[in-house]
């Protein structure tokens, strides 16, 4: 019998729609039990890691993620995070973690005021976190984005503090890994599209790693998203 090494909760809010993709991406790994968990379930606290998937939550009224961030689920998730458990937010999950104060910065509407849905290239900025340890600093990953409110914004002071603390995980870049204005699809501060907390166990990113775990689903044959899940699962 195979021993289950890691149990991961993928938390479903009303409006989540990338939840099954995340479950599927996690179940590709051996010895991993990935469960879809309704946000009202108290069992969220019993898992080894928590993934907040993409999509929407509570209609994204007020601001994307703002209502989910005040739900009992996030209180439970914050307690797990305080104990050092890995918590990963993808797209709307990232928005929820920022609105809930578990991650720094803000996610504002894209500069174009349009929903941007396309494959992008991002550069790994810190390869020593539990979400990036299977990557190399400077490595360029291909992942898709699909969102309207993903313009990461932070003040210059906060940006300096985050950079010094290694909290910037990913930046939009061109094919060669250069962060330019034209490779920043939504107008984020300093091309940032993925960050972590100070302790390094809570991370969020706007691109969708769960949609880039099988070459057949990517125009470039990318399965770069697997690196993120692999990094996280190996830390459990």
């Amino acid at each position, binding site marked *: 019998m195979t021993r289950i090494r890691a149990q991961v909760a993928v938390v479903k809010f009303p409006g989540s729609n990338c939840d099954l993709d995340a479950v599927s991406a996690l179940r590709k790994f051996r010895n991993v039990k990935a469960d879809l968990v309704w946000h009202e379930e108290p069992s969220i606290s019993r898992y080894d890691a928590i993934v907040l998937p993409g999509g929407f939550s509570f209609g994204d009224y*007020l601001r994307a993620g703002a*209502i989910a961030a005040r739900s009992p689920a996030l209180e439970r998730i914050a307690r797990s995070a305080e104990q050092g458990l890995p918590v990963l937010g993808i797209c709307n999950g990232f928005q929820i973690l920022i609105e809930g104060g578990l991650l720094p910065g803000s996610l504002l509407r894209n500069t174009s005021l349009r929903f941007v849905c396309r494959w992008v290239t991002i550069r790994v900025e810190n390869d020593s976190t539990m979400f990036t340890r299977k990557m190399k600093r400077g490595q360029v990953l291909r992942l898709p984005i699909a969102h309207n409110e993903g313009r990461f914004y932070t003040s210059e002071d906060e940006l300096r503090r985050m950079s010094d603390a290694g909290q910037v995980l990913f930046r939009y870049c061109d094919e060669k890994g250069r962060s330019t204005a034209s490779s920043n699809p939504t107008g984020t501060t300093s091309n940032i599209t993925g960050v972590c907390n100070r302790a390094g166990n809570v991370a969020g990113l706007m691109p969708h790693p769960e949609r880039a775990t099988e070459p057949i689903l990517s125009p470039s044959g990318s399965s770069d998203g697997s690196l993120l899940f692999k990094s996280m699962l190996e830390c459990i």
Partner: protein
Amino acid sequence: MFMQRPKVFTVKVVVSNREGASDPEGQTIFRDLVSKSGFKQVIGIRSGKFLGVSVEAPDSTSAKQIVMRMCDELRIYNPAAHSVTVEV
């Protein structure tokens, strides 16, 4: 003779769903955020869209009139579904 320079007024426009029309955004904010968080005195929320309109006009009454005309002519709100309030 001096030409009096027009003053600038900030006219506040709030577009919301008409009374009686359902307002899922306001209902969700009320039901899933506010009423679950202990603010029992709050008994309802209506959502809307706010526009701060800067207008050059000789006085506040004509500033308001200009904006009201703008809202009607440019269909800033949908009279079938929305109500609009204009305040200087």
